[in-house]
């Protein structure tokens, strides 16, 4: 039975429309129950996130089902249906499968490769299962979509590289140090972004954390928030000498960490690298320290550049992911297609065999003197005729099902040969 997906997403609908139409979970239960009661959809899953509202359904008449669903959603959310209709897209069968795979694999996301969407789709699927609106078709579609998403995540690097400045800084630290656990971090100044970077570093095992600030109370506050130790402003150089990573974000107009200072402290470090993450504007660390061995300094522009390059890397990986999805769609349709046409082929064969047997019996009844050889010849000939007749239609049915377009053909076959209703 036809599979379809209809909905709107960040690609074609503004945030205003999306947030109006988005449905929270308890409302979603009602919607699913109502849709099931309407009996137009055989199966249905509704995915509703801040970036997309989509209905995956199985229905005899997808157009009608889609209209029903969105009429219902609009009424529930008090949105003008005409406004929604304009933004809706619909994909059928093979295209719907592709869409489901791409969404789950985060290829259709606003930020390609972001990890939340898979969880959101899984939740939507689980909810529909709980509401008993999932049947065999959506079940196999979504299980396969989750598999594909997992493969995309592990086999490509689509989600590997940081796309935020603070995560990019953490990633850089990991390219300098072999693992961050036990690395000492010094925060100089107290900006929101440096706090965020420090949190990410702590999550990776960085320890201990020191906080230096011109205002002692501010240093104490932030140190408490990060389970770190406050450091007197006058002790800055001593602290610098002992840590591995320094995050700076003061409001100072002049660099607070100068090249002579860093040169001095590097002497005592015996080659232990020192990594400056300078988020302040104007910058806190003198750019001249770049020329010192084992000193790595990234200011906000450098970090942005790293993020840009990570994004390009993601885009490259996304192309590989698309190819992977395409192969999986093909395989899915192949399996699905065979499943779809086999019952028809079986009943078509049975129907013709029934006719053949009846006709052979009649003919042989009129030829009582026929020798066993002659009888065998008649049997063989009639079987051969049936096989010859069936060959082309069966081939055609399989081909079309693999192309995801067997529905009309199947209906035609049922109609022409009087095979009865299909399930």
């Amino acid at each position: 039975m036809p599979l379809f997906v209809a909905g709107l997403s960040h690609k074609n609908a503004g945030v205003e429309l999306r947030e109006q139409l988005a449905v929270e979970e308890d409302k979603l239960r009602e919607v699913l129950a109502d849709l099931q009661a309407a009996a137009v959809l055989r199966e249905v899953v509704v995915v509703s996130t801040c970036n997309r509202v989509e209905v995956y359904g199985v229905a005899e008449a997808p157009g009608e089902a889609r209209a029903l669903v969105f009429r219902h959603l609009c009424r529930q959310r008090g949105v003008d249906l005409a406004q929604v209709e304009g933004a809706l897209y619909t994909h059928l069968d093979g295209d719907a499968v592709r869409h489901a795979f791409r969404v789950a694999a985060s290829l259709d996301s606003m930020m390609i490769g972001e990890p939340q969407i898979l969880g959101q789709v899984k939740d939507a699927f689980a909810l529909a299962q709980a509401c008993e609106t999932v049947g065999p078709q959506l079940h196999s579609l979504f299980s396969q979509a989750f598999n594909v998403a997992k493969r995309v995540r592990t086999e490509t690097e689509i989600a590997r590289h940081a796309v935020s400045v603070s995560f990019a800084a953490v990633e850089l630290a990991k390219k300098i140090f072999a693992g961050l656990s036990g690395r000492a971090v010094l925060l100089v100044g107290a900006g929101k972004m440096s706090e965020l970077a420090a949190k990410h570093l702590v999550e990776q095992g960085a320890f201990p954390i020191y906080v230096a600030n011109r205002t002692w109370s501010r240093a104490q506050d932030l140190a408490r928030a990060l389970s770190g130790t406050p450091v007197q402003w006058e002790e800055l150089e001593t602290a610098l000498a002992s840590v591995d990573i320094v995050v700076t974000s003061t409001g100072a107009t002049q660099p607070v960490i100068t090249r002579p200072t860093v040169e001095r402290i590097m002497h005592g470090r015996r080659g232990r690298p020192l990594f400056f993450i300078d988020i302040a504007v104007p910058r806190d660390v003198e750019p001249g320290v770049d020329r010192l061995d084992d000193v790595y300094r990234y200011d906000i522009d450098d970090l942005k550049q790293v993020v840009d390059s990570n994004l390009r890397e993601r885009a490259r990986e996304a192309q590989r992911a698309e190819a992977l999805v395409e192969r999986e769609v093909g395989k899915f349709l192949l399996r699905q297609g065979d499943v779809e046409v086999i019952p028809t082929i079986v009943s078509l064969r049975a129907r013709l065999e029934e006719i053949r047997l009846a006709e052979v019996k009649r003919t042989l009844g009129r030829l009582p003197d026929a020798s066993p050889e002659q009888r065998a010849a008649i049997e063989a000939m009639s079987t051969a005729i049936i096989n010859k007749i069936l060959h082309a239609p069966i081939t055609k049915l399989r081909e079309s099902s693999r192309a995801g377009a067997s529905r009309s053909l199947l209906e035609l076959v049922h109609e022409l040969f009087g095979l009865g209703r299909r399930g």
Partner: protein
Amino acid sequence: MHGNLINAAVIGYVVATGLALAYLVQRQDLVHRLAVLATLAGWAAHSVVLIARAIELGAPPLGSLPDAISVAVWVIVLVEVLIERRTGLRVLGAFVLPIVVVLSLKAATPRAVTLAPALASVWIWIHIALALIGIAAFVFNFAGALMYLLQEHQLKAKRPGAFYYRLPALETLDHLTFRTLALGFPFLTTGLVLGALWARTAWGSPFTFDPLAFLSFLAWLIYAGTLAGRAAGGWHGRRAAYCSIIGFAMLVLTLGAGLFLPGRHGS
């Protein structure tokens, strides 16, 4: 059959090198798997060649420099695959296999079946074996140093490119170069000392002029200096990496001298 297998081994290594370099750019699992397969195929053919050669000689195939290099290549390939497996450092092949190809091309030349008369003592075999292990370790030392310099350059330039994404952390690479140096150095040292002792027994003086012996002594000096600098002077990172590269260049010259210049190690 022998010649065909040598060619098969070399072709295997060449294909593996191409695939390993492609993996550096492409980063596809399949490419890496094929590279490992090609490496193992080359290595398997190589193993058969070495066994055949040992049977042919009636002794370990270490008696001439090309033979010995061939054994060294065999060890290097094995260790390369093992390190990749154990540490997940999948880009290592791209740095080690090109060296393997160059060495194995030279090792694949046909050579005499007779042993040099000097090769009568068990000490000389130990001399050769130890020196080979040292050289194998220094191949990885060189690869580590090269990777360190590439990664360091990327980090300093602040423009992440292919190497930034593919290579591990600087610290990891620095450890790799240090450990391979610390491992290779005692073997090289003992190998050289045994060679000198043998030279005294055989030719009366430990320091008779032989191009290979002379150049390998220079390489030893460079490595000794690097190791001392690391242990006592806190050398590390870029400086140590440059030293490793110069040391390895000297080793390559050493082997080249052994292969192309007349001398006691000549083939």
